[in-house]
């Protein structure tokens, strides 16, 4: 456990994050384990409400109360973030770990010009002059696809379009050359052309600076283009971990198969889109056994009784499903 493998930049181990109500606790993230290697993009994918954002916020130690990390470890570089003090964590956020938050408007300061917000991060963490931080900010704006960067530098968040704000957040996240970037749906509000630009930029940053990335998305197509490994999340758990190419050729978990089938493409003249039958279970009323069994067409009696353990399928591949138990 811990730093067995030097190549792992982030090693999340049995992480559990809960929201406690009066009499019971809801586990939004329930004993998940995964790691991200140096220079790698790890895709975390799953349906709305499965716990992707709470996983990211747990790593940043920004889970909103009453939510809290109640168990597990988050090994990063040479420390366990789960037990780190707020003060030490502050030095890591923005500097060693950058984050692109899911809702851009709520994470930008409405009364500061966007250029100043990029500079602020730089000045807080790097020992550089005002001029340097300004020219670096303008360079970053150019990298995230703005043409008239000097002008954008002077604008306030409300003066920008949805996609422009998202790009500002990306600039802030990568400004200090962090070793890990957590990107929570960073391109959802972007048109295809801008999305392509941003994805190439992120790819460049990863290969050029050796950054690692946790890429959270519901869009499997992006992971196909961008990622090396993928984790499929459902009801607070990771149900499958796989290598991206193998995943698209041969997904392991029945849930993964459903997800792949519902990728939307233009075909024929369908009147309605395909969706996985059933819906995500409520956190307060999770089924017994495998959390996916009520929606699974392969469910067996055992699936209702016990939660399947992790089953290794090959190098860096595992699945939690009884279909693979023997």
């Amino acid at each position, binding site marked *: 456990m811990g730093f067995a493998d030097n190549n792992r930049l982030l090693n999340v181990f049995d992480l559990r994050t809960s929201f406690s109500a009066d009499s019971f606790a809801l586990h939004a993230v329930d004993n998940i384990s995964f790691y991200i290697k140096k220079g790698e993009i790890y895709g975390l994918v799953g349906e709305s409400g499965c716990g992707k954002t709470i996983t990211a916020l747990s790593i940043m130690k920004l889970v909103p109360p009453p939510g809290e990390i109640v168990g597990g470890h988050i090994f990063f570089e040479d420390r366990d973030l789960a037990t780190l003090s707020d003060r030490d964590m502050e030095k890591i956020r923005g500097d060693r770990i950058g984050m692109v938050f899911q809702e851009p408007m709520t994470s930008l300061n409405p009364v500061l010009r966007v250029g100043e917000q990029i500079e602020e991060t730089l000045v807080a963490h790097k020992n550089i002059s005002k001029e340097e931080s300004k020219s670096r900010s303008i360079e970053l704006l150019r990298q995230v696809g703005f043409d008239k960067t000097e002008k954008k530098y002077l604008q306030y968040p409300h003066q920008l*379009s949805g996609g422009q704000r998202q790009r500002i957040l990306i600039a802030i996240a990568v400004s200090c050359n962090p070793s890990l970037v957590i990107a929570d749906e960073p391109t959802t509000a972007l048109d295809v052309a801008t999305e392509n630009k941003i994805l190439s930029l992120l790819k460049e940053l990863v290969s050029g600076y050796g950054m690692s990335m946790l890429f959270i998305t519901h869009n499997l197509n992006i992971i196909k283009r961008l990622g090396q490994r993928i984790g499929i999340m459902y009801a607070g758990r990771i149900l499958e971990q796989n290598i991206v190419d193998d995943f698209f050729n041969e997904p392991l978990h029945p849930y993964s198969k459903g997800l792949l089938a519902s990728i939307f493409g233009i075909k024929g003249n369908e009147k*309605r889109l395909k969706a996985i039958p059933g819906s995500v279970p409520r956190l307060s009323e999770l089924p017994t056994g495998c959390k996916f069994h009520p929606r699974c067409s392969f469910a067996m009696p055992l699936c209702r009784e016990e939660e399947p353990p992790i089953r290794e399928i090959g190098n860096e591949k595992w699945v939690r499903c009884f279909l693979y138990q023997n």
Partner: protein
Amino acid sequence: MGKMLSVSELRKVYEVKKTAFSLKKDRIKAVDGVSFELESGKTIGIVGESGSGKSTLARCILLLEEPDEGTITFSGNDLLHMGKHELKRLRKDMQIIFQDPYSSLNPRRKVFDTIAEPLLFHNIIKKKHVKEKVIEIFKKVGLDEDFLDKYPHEMSGGQRQRIAIGRALATNPSLLIADEPVSSLDVSIQAQIVNLFMDIKESTNISMLFVSHDLNIVRFISDEIMVMYSGKVLEMGEKDEVFYRPLHPYTEMLIDSIKGELFKKAKVDTFDFNDGCVYYPRCNSREPICSKEMPHLTGEKEHMVACFLST
């Protein structure tokens, strides 16, 4: 089929300071002379890159922001020349789903109240039936009763977005403007919500403006497509026309990019030019005339384009 909405020569210019301490201002033409007509029961999909003016257009049509010029006629009413009172009455028929749901939901109000309030305010339902109705709306957008008592910050991004969708649909509007309504949702719920829009389209006479960067979904849901760039409409027409016979180089590029072809590096000139076509600096097929003036949108209603090379 009557006209539900007609927009003519709409303009919105923003002024932003040139430098932090100067008095000089730059003018951003966010919406620059947009005209179109939306028939009742029809859906127009609006596509265009980030910053092209889609959200500004949406806000101006609903008068959430005052346009500088132009006219907006909704169901025969001239919106820009109406009394406050009359306008308020019309509000229930014109709904919007905002691109950024979090900032449009009241953080101090439980999501149940967010949806119940317009139902009660517009006398759509009696108080004693309101809970049933809200639960029914929650079901339609794929949320269960557990969420009734939650505050927006207690929900995930996609769950909040579905509250915003439910709120907009609650009053059975005749015009719905949906600004990137499904982009924060995963495929499965996206499918469910898009299907819900299709159901509503078929069972009512709703008219929609559907803004999305996902051309697949736009094509699925729309009858007509409008392509925006830099505040202007570059191409507009029936969806199959625009999809299978794109006339503008920009539309062609957009459609290529969903076929998986990578975004070609366009020529970009950084010089400022004032009179030419807005797409001139990035256009791969430009001619000398394109730098001289902006072409008008011309052609039959089924398919119009603003490009010298296509007309």
